């Protein structure tokens, strides 16, 4: 690809420009500096969750993806065994430990509004692995995409979009960007992963870059994670890889796709464009790590790292099998509070069903949410202070959008580019009048789509 781009003058210019872009961190406007509270949970090594011997509920639904159950009640399953069959658009689902299938039905999921169809497994505490298939490593992107779907690889950073679908959509890729920004306060699960498993991450990045034909691979990490940056750099040196780690400024939402693309490679992702449209592929570090484990060790995605933080005696990061009830984690964290927030304070939500289980996208549990998070207050009147405008990373006018959203002026909303809103919540957080800006935009966007 390098030779190709060097043969014609415009390609050469592009090559030169890309090289320059790979070196500098480009600026974007907006965002807010947050108290990150990361030191609460970042100090200790990743702990393992003790092998469960209790009923788990493994969700077959993840975001819009939905697998068909392929096991029957009474059947014994092994760790890593397929329990839900997917297809080109739906992720396959695997048992996260060994045990007996009890039933199939809806279960509450920690970071989901509605219960998800799940397979209930009475874990036997033996944690017996199924024989891992040593599949030949995928040799094309299409093969890899299919493989990723079979391994149940959901994006671990945010909404859980299947990694395979992302890769299947890849066109020409100049830059492979790895998102290690973790700009949400409280979360340290990606940080811990980068510190402790940098080698797998770098190996996976090299593998994926080669497959995609990406000329450059850049990892963006917010400056508040110096240990992670150091760990990645030494892993790069050990592997002799040409991946670059870039320190990006701490500012929420630095990990948002358009912001990250801009900061790392200088390309501008306009609203409505996908990274693929501008020759970029973006993957979260944890998703990349899972991809590495799937490709190199044949392990499907059956566990994830969850940050336990807030008011608890043993905060930290724990590797949790998918489907474990969150009540089990209270013991590990040493928490008594029932007031739990799931996910980061910006994008997460309050845990409403105490019996809910951990899914592939459950990143964090904040115990004693009331003491750590802003108190919800009744909305006042907008004083046109413009803070929402200043912080909006997508350069929107949240205060005007809000008025239009309240009055359901769909045409005006369209004209003011509501679709560009990434629902980051920076506006709502900064608003002194406490207007529920983001929530109203979320709703209006849904209405607009209909």
């Amino acid at each position, binding site marked *: 690809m390098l030779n190709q781009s060097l043969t014609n003058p415009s390609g050469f210019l592009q090559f030169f420009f890309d090289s320059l872009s790979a070196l500098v961190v480009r600026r974007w406007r907006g965002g807010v500096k947050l108290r990150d509270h990361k030191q609460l949970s970042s100090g200790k090594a990743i702990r393992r969750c003790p092998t469960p011997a209790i009923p788990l509920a493994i969700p077959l639904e993840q975001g819009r993806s939905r697998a068909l159950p392929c096991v029957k009640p009474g059947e014994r399953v092994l760790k890593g065994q397929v329990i839900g069959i997917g297809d080109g658009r739906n992720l396959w689902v695997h048992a996260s430990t060994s045990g007996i299938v009890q039933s199939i039905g809806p279960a509450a999921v920690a970071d989901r509004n509605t219960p998800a169809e799940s397979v209930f497994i009475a874990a036997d505490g033996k944690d017996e692995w199924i024989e891992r298939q040593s599949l030949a490593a995928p040799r094309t992107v299409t093969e890899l995409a299919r493989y990723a779907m079979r391994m149940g690889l959901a994006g671990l950073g945010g909404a859980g979009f299947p990694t395979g679908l992302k890769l299947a959509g890849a066109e020409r890729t100049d830059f492979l960007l790895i998102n290690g920004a973790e700009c949400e306060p409280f979360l340290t699960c990606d940080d811990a992963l980068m510190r402790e498993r940098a080698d797998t991450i770098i190996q996976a990045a090299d593998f994926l870059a080669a497959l995609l034909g990406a000329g450059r691979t850049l990892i963006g990490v917010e400056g508040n994670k110096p240990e992670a940056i150091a760990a990645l750099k030494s892993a790069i040196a050990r592997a002799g890889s040409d991946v670059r780690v870039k320190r990006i400024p701490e500012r929420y939402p630095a990990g948002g796709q358009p912001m990250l693309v*801009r900061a790392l490679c200088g390309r501008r992702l306009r609203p409505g464009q996908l990274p693929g449209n501008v020759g970029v592929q973006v993957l979260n570090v944890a998703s990349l790590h899972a991809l590495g484990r799937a490709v190199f060790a044949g392990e499907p995605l059956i566990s994830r790292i969850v940050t336990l933080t807030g008011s608890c005696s043993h905060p930290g990061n724990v590797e949790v099998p998918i489907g474990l009830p969150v009540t089990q984690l209270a013991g590990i964290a040493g928490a008594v509070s029932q007031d739990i927030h799931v996910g980061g304070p910006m994008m997460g939500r309050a845990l409403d069903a105490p019996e809910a289980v951990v899914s592939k996208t459950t990143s964090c549990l904040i115990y004693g949410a009331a*003491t750590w998070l*802003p108190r919800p207050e009744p909305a006042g009147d907008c004083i046109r202070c413009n803070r929402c405008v200043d912080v909006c990373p997508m350069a929107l006018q949240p205060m005007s959008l809000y008025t239009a959203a309240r009055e359901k002026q769909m045409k005006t909303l369209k004209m003011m580019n509501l679709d560009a809103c990434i629902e980051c919540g920076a506006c709502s957080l900064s608003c002194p009048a406490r207007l529920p800006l983001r929530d109203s935009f979320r709703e209006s966007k849904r209405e607009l789509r209909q």
Partner: protein
Amino acid sequence: MSLVNGLRPGSVRGVMAAISLALIPGTLLHALQFGAIVWLQTGWCLLLALVIEALCLRLRGRPITAGLGDLSWLVCGLLLARALPLLVPVWMMALAVLTALGLAKHAGGGLGRNRLNPAMAGLAVVAICFYQFLYPAPDPLAPWTAALTLEELLLLEWQLAPRLEADALSGATPLKTGLLDSAAPYLSWCGYLAGGLLLALIGVIRIEIPLAMMASSVSLCMLSGHTLTESLHSLSLGGYMLTAFFIATDPVTSPDNRSARILFGITVGVVTELIREFGLYADGLCFAVLTANLLVPNLNRVGARLHRPWYQAA
């Protein structure tokens, strides 16, 4: 616990409280120079603002405690107290507060929807209707109000004693010859400047408005033949600093983007200077602010055209 880093107050009440606190140094210096009348006038205005705000909220069927809780009446009362000339009768203050809160704010749609700065609208009505009553007002060169007793002040404010004429006064009240008068003719501007800079520092007001305003005033003043020192000196006169940092920066009635805010500041500065130079009024600040307030939608449109989202290619 707030998640946002920094000192910026996170609620409307916090913002209003910060502005009120930042007004204290200027008011203090003012009182030092002019005496008890300053506190008296502030007290009356606050009382009136509280009562009238509560009444308006009641009439609009809004919850009263929540409406008063945002403290916007406090800021409006304080500003009016400081913007009105000293020794105006109480009924005139009432008229000003009624215009400010009742007409400009609540009849204009409530907090956040008014287009005119309430305090300036109130002042403008009084200034236009009762010009003869107001001027000449107590002057920093002759701060005779400082020598009056509380009783005399109250009688004057309720118009129970005949209005003191400036001429009669200069003979009647010995001009104080203290350090204050000789060293600095007018003091309170330092207080407003300090308070305003503090507000800008914690992100409550936008510094570009006062900066643009002062820059344009000074340039125009120099263009009309004054020296730089004179032009700079003119910034300390009257309520200039108060207006620049506390009134023109009112978020509700100032524009929505930086370029427009700069244009807004320039408008205020220019109109002020024109009125000072050619107008009938000694201080044109309130008319300048109102003029610029009316231009805000246009300025917004002009400013918006200059802004391009960062993700749009140049």
